[in-house]
């Protein structure tokens, strides 16, 4: 469903993504991990047609990223890390606008929106009367997730989707993506909350400095790395081994 071949992105002299290659089959939930600045968001932006690769290419749903970006955009959903929305629209106006961009007729869009607000426990009155600028972070995140799934895309990219969601919504969301994957959707899940990734994802890809470090099932990777958890493996691979000692040293500087 997704295939990267030596995908590279440079910003001037800085290489953010460095020759990344991997494949993702339909129905998989792939955890896409890396420390800050590793190139995760840049990779997701390239795979959704938001950024043009410097070299290499990728296909999504069989369409080439360079030649057919609009076909790809029709078939992917993205929950961006920023959670940006047009704050001066109401939730309903925003979602209807998004539906129009994918050619979803008004009636069908409204039915679909109602299904989502029911799932997310959002009141329809809130959606019609309140401007998005006045929504809480969690409510706004629910709208952004709805906007990503409204057109029923076969491939969905989530960049820190749980940011701002309360515990109940987070549990519901995790169940939702697992069900979506069982129904054949491909899900790429980028997050720093590693225990969630470990529980939800079939497969984990860890990158650092734009390069692929490891790729495999979470339990197999943890076992092969001799770590107790995915978090342990992550810090081991990305140079965070000293972090506990450094944090303790730093905390001591706060002593009166």
């Amino acid at each position, binding site marked *: 469903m997704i295939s990267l071949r030596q995908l590279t992105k440079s910003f001037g002299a800085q290489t953010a993504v460095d020759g990344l290659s991997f494949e993702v089959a339909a129905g998989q939930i792939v955890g896409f991990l890396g420390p800050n600045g590793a190139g995760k968001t840049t990779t997701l*932006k390239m795979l959704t047609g938001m950024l043009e690769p410097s070299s290499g290419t990728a296909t999504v749903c069989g369409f080439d990223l360079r030649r057919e970006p*609009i076909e790809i*955009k029709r078939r992917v959903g993205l929950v961006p890390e*920023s959670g940006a929305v047009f704050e*001066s629209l109401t939730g309903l106006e925003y979602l209807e606008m998004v539906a*129009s961009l994918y050619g*979803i007729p*008004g009636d069908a869009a*409204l039915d679909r929106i109602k299904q989502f607000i029911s799932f997310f426990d959002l009141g329809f009155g809130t959606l019609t009367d309140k401007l998005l600028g*006045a929504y809480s972070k969690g409510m706004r995140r629910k709208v952004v997730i709805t906007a990503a799934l409204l057109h029923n895309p076969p491939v969905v990219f989530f960049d820190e989707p749980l940011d701002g969601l309360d515990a109940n919504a987070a549990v519901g969301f995790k169940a939702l993506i697992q069900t979506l994957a069982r129904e054949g959707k491909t899900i790429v899940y980028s997050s720093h909350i590693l225990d969630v990734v470990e529980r939800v994802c079939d497969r984990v890809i860890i990158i650092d400095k734009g390069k692929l470090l490891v790729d495999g099932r979470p339990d197999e990777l943890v076992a092969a790395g001799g770590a107790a958890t995915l978090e342990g493996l992550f810090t081991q691979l990305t140079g965070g081994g000293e972090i506990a000692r450094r944090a303790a040293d730093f905390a001591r500087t706060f002593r009166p």
Partner: protein
Amino acid sequence: MSRPPAAPTERTLRRLFLTLFLRGRTSRGTRKDSAPSSVGSKLLGTLAIYGLMGGLALMFVGQTVFALSVYLHGMTFVFIGMFVAASSGEVLFNKEEADILLHRPVTPRALLRAKVGVLVRVSLWLAGAFNAVGLVVGAFSAGAAVWYPLVHAVSTALEALFCTALVVVVYQLCLRWFGRERLDGVMTTAQVTIAVAVVLSGQLVPRMTRPLQGRPALRADAWWMGLLPPAWFAGFDDALAGSGVAASWLLAAAGLAATGSALWLAFGVLARDYGAGLQTLGESGSLPAERPGRRRLLHGLVQAPPLRWWLRDPVTRASFLLSAAYLARDRDVKLRVYPAIAPLLCMPLVFVLQDATHRSSTSNPGLGLAFAGSFLALVPAFGLSLLRYSQQWQASDLFRAAPLAGPAPLCHGARLASLLFLGLPLIVCLGGLFGVLQGDLSHLVFLLPGAIALPVLALIPCLGGNAVPFSLPGEEAKAASRGLSMFGMMMAAMALSGLVLAARAYGWFWWLIMAESMAALAIRAWLRARVATARWSSME
């Protein structure tokens, strides 16, 4: 109730961008019916006042079609050009929009067309309001055809298209020629240049065409008319609904060719560069690192006298550094402040040049300097009022969270930055230019009234603690009303310079200076006391 079928993408985008323009892009309001309608309501107010200003066209009753149209197109060019130049940065290149729209099945060309459609539509509202009286007056102009209103409406629409396409072309050429790394700086420069060119062109055309006695002519000494956009569109009116002389047809042809070329370049040839420009905004990695030399210079300035004495308070110093940094680095702030201030410099420049170059013939030497000084005294206050706006306005919650009794020190820091980086350089440059051109520095004393008023005027935006830097959403500073602020400033500057000239004529100049200095000291003390007692307003 049955809902409509899916709207075509471009119609959806046009509706979206018009809604965003009228409501503003950010909101702290809670409900749709109490949405920040300020932009929309401001726009309505602005349209009403433009309509009233358009009444000045009544002065042209009985004059030729060309004379009336030159005036109408000159002023329309200023309003539309200013609006498009100042609004286009925010409308065309909004950073957050990349995360919302670039992964949707929308082409850059469709985005561009929808945004330009909104700019043209609002431009036409402004132009329509200003030209409403002129349309009627034109029907009664000497030698006018009855279809003048229709012809003028078409030429005004062409002018709006030309202005918008020109700005888009300039941006796209910047993208293509200067690369992504330098895009921010180059775009700001381009926008300031366009704003200055538009104002100069709009202000100067009616003055320059006076010797032609209301008729376009194929004359060697009038070749420059072919270079001025307002003259093209006035020629269009005169060709189709006026004298119909050969020169009018030539000007009309130039206008049509220029508009066609600008549209073709903007939407045909360069549109794909627009997608690259939008991507650039999403590429945080492409932002150039701050040059360490510039940072050292700013911090060096603050550490050295006299700033070290003025900025003893650490909060004032921090606010000064923040304001100075944003004036130097932040694209959004630069695009708002400099293009808005640049046109304010045109009139002082024209007056100073007239003063300096007609020193023997003028009966009022120093008139230009007095006017320029009064005009420039308003610049820091205007700049300070614009420094309140930012796309990152929510970050200013930090100020309220800090243990500060009120916003006074923050306002003072921003005020000092505005005085130092906007007001002072302009006065020095203008005085220097006058000195170089005329060689006689004695007339520079006419800058004094403006210079004395400057620090007092800069305190006015601070009243009530309202000049906290970067604390309001950018949309609230919408550009449509900027032309009106400028008009009000011009009137105030003229009143002050009139006072100076009267004092000079009666031999009271130095008495005026003394009285103004004392009044300035007293008012300044009163204003500072008022600002110091200001407390944080309720955060809605």
